[in-house]
């Protein structure tokens, strides 16, 4: 084939990538959501189209109209109404929207796999006849390529005209700028957003229908293909339509042109891989080269604090007391993890995957929960850990001598560290969308260039593990896994405690402020990435040993997305959540058909809108509601001196908000402000409980009981504060400054109310600058 023929052959794929890019850009520019679910939607529509044509026997034109004019926009409208409108309403961060779109992706993949299975189909119908027309001489171009090219031109012209020339275009810009403000000015924001989604998903559907006949139709494969076209929107820096289209055509034609070259040796192999994977390589290179995407909204899109409901464990004695009480829960969890040892041999083998997967999830907890970064490359690190440990065990790595299996696992995991370190470098300056895409691209490139290459991933033998000459049986292997998990948990615990933990949380909360007091921002981020990659590598190595085989599919880039979603769903900052998530996925995979765990995680992810902190914090939330119910039922808010509180409660903890302000500021202004803050604020639950009157002989409550009791106290106190504040506001006698400070002061006293012991402990009425609108008066009314 000549260069021109190759170029023309590349046009078709380039045009499809351009259509996908147009869809992504339309959704992003109208909604501020980078729709990671684009690939899933494309796949779903492609399957529906095939079903209508092949199974139901509909004519292609009718099926095309149904799939592209009814189903595709319908999916968009549904997503906008059910998932993304609520998020926009509560001004969710870009990171939350990103995770929501991940959830949608996982859900759609689950549905597709659930209905049509994971197998591949090669009978996807083509939208256009397989003819070609003569351009000049012998050069011919396919009808499909021509039609696709025309579609790209038409769509981009129409979109360009709408954006530049119509009132609707102005409305779009207004909504993107500030949705609430636009609505106040009479712009129908919901309609604009819905139109954006419908257009975006229609493009996605079109992409899927056009791509399917060119490749095998599989749920994961097609999705990944569409995800690779993200290179196009990154080149466009998320804004320029023409750049996106030209990049799409450029990459595709270049990829096609590469086919006329052949090289020998390693370079030849790389070239072969490049010939079909230029998009993903371009994605990585562009992300590393483009300094900053034009992300919409404020620059805080990297903040993932919303997934992490918890702060640092309180330092000092408070933390120690809680630490001891947590032992009970930890022992219980440990016992549950030991339970598989009593299982039948086949069930025990199924359980092998739980600790391995849990370790991989822990690696994501480190990055996302503790240092506040989104990382979508875990599968890459896990796979590298697996591959390196197997190579070490086989004596096949850089001429190193063969290591005994167990040591190979540990050393292999450590060898992932340099890769994590290198990946960490881009993370120093990147966050949010850019970092998410960068880590995804790293995972994908590693998968394509290493895991799927026979040079690296063939001739791998998994020998039974031995420990000083003794072969490990199944039970011993499971115990080894638990030991490794324990090691991982210890690392996570150390990362979360003490100076290091505080520095990491400081970095997550406010990196500028952290740098201002000397926190080494760069090295801490690198440390987090490195440790995370080692933990993932360890998990990957164990995963291979539990399934007795190395399969590139186990560490495919899409796995990272699924795993990340699972981790966020189960609580991104919770080690326990990571273990539960692993057990959940493995259990469903064992009991239910393929893809069910994907579906389950997807369903849970959709519920994330109602529980932003993941399941872990949802549990905490339910506890809080229960406490509110108990307080409503049993605590009388109008009582100034409440019924005697059992002594036991005072041994559990007291409310920090009950303390009056210390007078030694010598400064009424600041004192009042702080006082108001203390009484008005609703400290993150659970309250840091501080034992101050440990009564001997009183049995200590369980952690659950303690938490419940302190939650009841807190809610009752807040409610009492409201009631007395209302009473205080009703009194018209207060004048001048007192009228100002009245409600605040009352609130302060109200919170003190239900806790007799705490009130006597901290009464500092003498120093409180409350004035005549005194708390006691307000409370008595």
């Amino acid at each position: 084939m000549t260069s021109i023929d190759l170029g023309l052959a590349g046009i078709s794929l380039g045009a499809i990538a351009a259509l996908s890019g147009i869809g992504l850009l339309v959704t992003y520019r109208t909604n501020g959501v980078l729709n990671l679910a684009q690939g899933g939607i494309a796949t779903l529509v492609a399957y529906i189209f095939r079903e209508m044509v092949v199974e139901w026997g509909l004519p292609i034109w009718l099926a095309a109209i149904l799939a592209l004019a009814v189903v595709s926009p319908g999916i968009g409208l549904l997503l906008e109404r059910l998932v993304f409108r609520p998020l926009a309403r509560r001004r969710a961060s870009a990171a939350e929207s990103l995770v929501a779109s991940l959830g949608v992706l996982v859900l759609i993949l689950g549905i597709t796999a659930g209905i049509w299975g994971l197998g591949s189909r090669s009978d996807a119908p083509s939208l256009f006849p397989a003819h070609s027309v003569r351009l000049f001489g012998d050069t011919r171009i396919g009808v499909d390529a021509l039609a696709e090219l025309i579609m790209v031109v038409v769509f981009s012209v129409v979109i360009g005209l709408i954006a530049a020339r119509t009132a609707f275009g102005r409305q779009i810009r207004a909504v993107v700028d500030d949705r609430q403000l636009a609505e106040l000015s009479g712009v129908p924001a919901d309609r604009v957003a819905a139109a954006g989604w419908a257009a975006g998903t229609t493009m996605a559907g079109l992409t899927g229908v056009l791509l399917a006949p060119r490749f095998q139709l599989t749920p994961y494969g097609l999705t990944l293909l569409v995800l690779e076209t993200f290179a196009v929107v990154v080149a466009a820096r998320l804004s320029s339509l023409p750049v996106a289209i030209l990049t799409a055509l450029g990459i595709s034609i270049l990829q096609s042109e590469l086919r006329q070259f052949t090289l020998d040796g390693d370079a030849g192999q790389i070239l072969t891989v490049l010939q079909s994977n230029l998009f993903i390589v371009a994605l990585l290179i562009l992300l590393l080269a483009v300094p900053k995407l034009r992300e919409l909204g404020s620059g805080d899109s990297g903040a993932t604090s919303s997934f992490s409901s918890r702060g640092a464990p309180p330092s000092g004695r408070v933390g120690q007391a809680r630490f001891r009480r947590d032992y009970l829960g930890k022992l219980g969890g440990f016992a549950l993890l030991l339970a598989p040892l009593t299982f039948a041999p086949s069930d025990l083998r199924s359980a092998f995957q739980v600790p391995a997967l849990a370790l991989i999830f822990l690696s994501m907890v480190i990055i996302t929960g503790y240092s506040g970064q989104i990382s979508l490359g875990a599968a890459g690190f896990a796979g590298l850990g697996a591959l390196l440990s197997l190579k070490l065990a086989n004596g096949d790595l850089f001429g190193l001598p063969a290591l005994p299996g167990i040591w190979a696992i540990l050393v292999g995991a450590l060898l992932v560290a340099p890769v994590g370190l290198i990946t960490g470098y881009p993370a120093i300056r990147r966050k949010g969308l850019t970092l998410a895409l960068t880590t995804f691209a790293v995972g994908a490139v590693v998968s394509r260039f290493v895991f799927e290459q026979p040079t690296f991933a063939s001739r791998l033998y998994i020998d039974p593990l031995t420990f000083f000459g003794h072969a490990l049986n199944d039970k011993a292997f499971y115990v080894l896994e638990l030991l490794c998990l324990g090691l991982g948990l210890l690392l996570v615990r150390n990362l979360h405690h003490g100076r290091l933990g505080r520095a990491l949380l400081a970095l997550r909360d406010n990196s500028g402020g952290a740098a201002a007091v000397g926190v080494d921002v760069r090295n801490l981020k690198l440390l987090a990435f490195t440790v995370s990659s080692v933990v993932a590598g360890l998990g990957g190595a164990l995963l291979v040993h539990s399934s007795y085989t190395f399969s590139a599919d186990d560490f495919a880039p899409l796995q990272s997305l699924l795993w990340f979603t699972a981790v966020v769903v189960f609580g991104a900052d919770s080690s326990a959540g990571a273990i539960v998530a692993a057990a959940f996925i493995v259990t469903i995979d064992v009991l239910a058909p393929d893809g069910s765990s994907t579906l389950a995680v997807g369903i849970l992810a959709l519920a994330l809108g109602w529980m932003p902190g993941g399941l872990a914090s949802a549990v905490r939330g339910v506890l809080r509601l229960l406490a509110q119910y108990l307080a409503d039922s049993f605590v009388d808010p109008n009582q100034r001196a409440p019924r005697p509180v059992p002594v036991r409660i005072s041994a559990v903890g007291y409310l920090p908000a009950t303390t009056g302000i210390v007078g030694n500021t010598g400064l009424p202004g600041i004192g009042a402000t702080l006082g108001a803050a203390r009484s008005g604020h609703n400290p993150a639950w659970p309250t840091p409980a501080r034992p101050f009157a440990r009564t001997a002989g009183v049995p200590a409550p369980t952690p659950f009981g303690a938490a419940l009791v302190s939650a009841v106290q807190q809610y009752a106190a807040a409610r009492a504060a409201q009631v007395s504040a209302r009473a205080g506001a009703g009194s018209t006698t207060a004048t001048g400054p007192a009228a100002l400070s009245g409600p605040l002061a009352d609130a302060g006293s109200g919170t003190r109310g239900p806790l007799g012991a705490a009130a006597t402990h901290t009464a500092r009425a003498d120093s409180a600058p409350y004035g005549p609108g005194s708390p006691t008066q307000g409370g008595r009314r």
Partner: protein
Amino acid sequence: MSRGVLQGVGLVRRYGGLTAVDHVDLVAPPGMITGLIGPNGAGKSTLFSLLTGVEQPDEGQVLLGTTDISTMRPDIRSRRGLVQTFQVPSLFTSLTVADNLLVGAENRRRDYAGGLLGLSAQGRSRVSRTVAGVLERTGLAPKGPVDRVVEEVLSSLGLSDIRDTIAGTLPTGALRLVEFARALCAQPDILLLDEPASGLDNAETAKLSELLRQTAARGVGILIVDHDVDLIFSVADQVYAMVGGRVVASGDPGTVRDDPTVRSVYLAQAPLAAAGHAREGS
């Protein structure tokens, strides 16, 4: 004398065609309060970012003592004793007040790898640190020196009572105070304050100037940028006035206040005496 002096020498910073900072020389000695005033767009904030390391100068040098720190990152400057606060208080919102201060106090060292292995306690040698850590964890040993710094600052600023409050729940006035406390905990040689009085009421501002004087009396150099000209003229030992990217007047507050250029700039905007009171209304 050389240790702890912050010096800007011939600093230039351009944005495209605009020269935001134009050959500025500035000295902030230890134990003294140096004020930096100027109308909006005078280049104060840019100069401030050059000193803190958020931006780097196109020409000129930033010296701390005798060391050229022009190209160092903000966190390195901070570990060398140059600590800043922000226009918008930037606390660690999920940590308690006490933990915020602890982060301020304990990050002059950067051996985080020790923490990864569980050796996070304070001490001189690694062994004694480990032992101290075990003792502290079991509650048998008193708190380390870092904790003492934090306790001192907490009590001297009257923050002891909100020490266990989550910082994200505090109002602006308290946030500023906690941020200042956090900067103090880092035991700075030079403290750079960016509009520390914005958002504070009169009483809080009075308290702030008192704090500033006490801090300077302990040998800390303070450079303060603020719109509140009254605050600066009342606390500063020396004042720099910037207009259009250049320093137009410098010296003791009286001299700068009487400088004709300064007068004309501020009279054109608002009478000098009323500048501070305008804030009350807001």
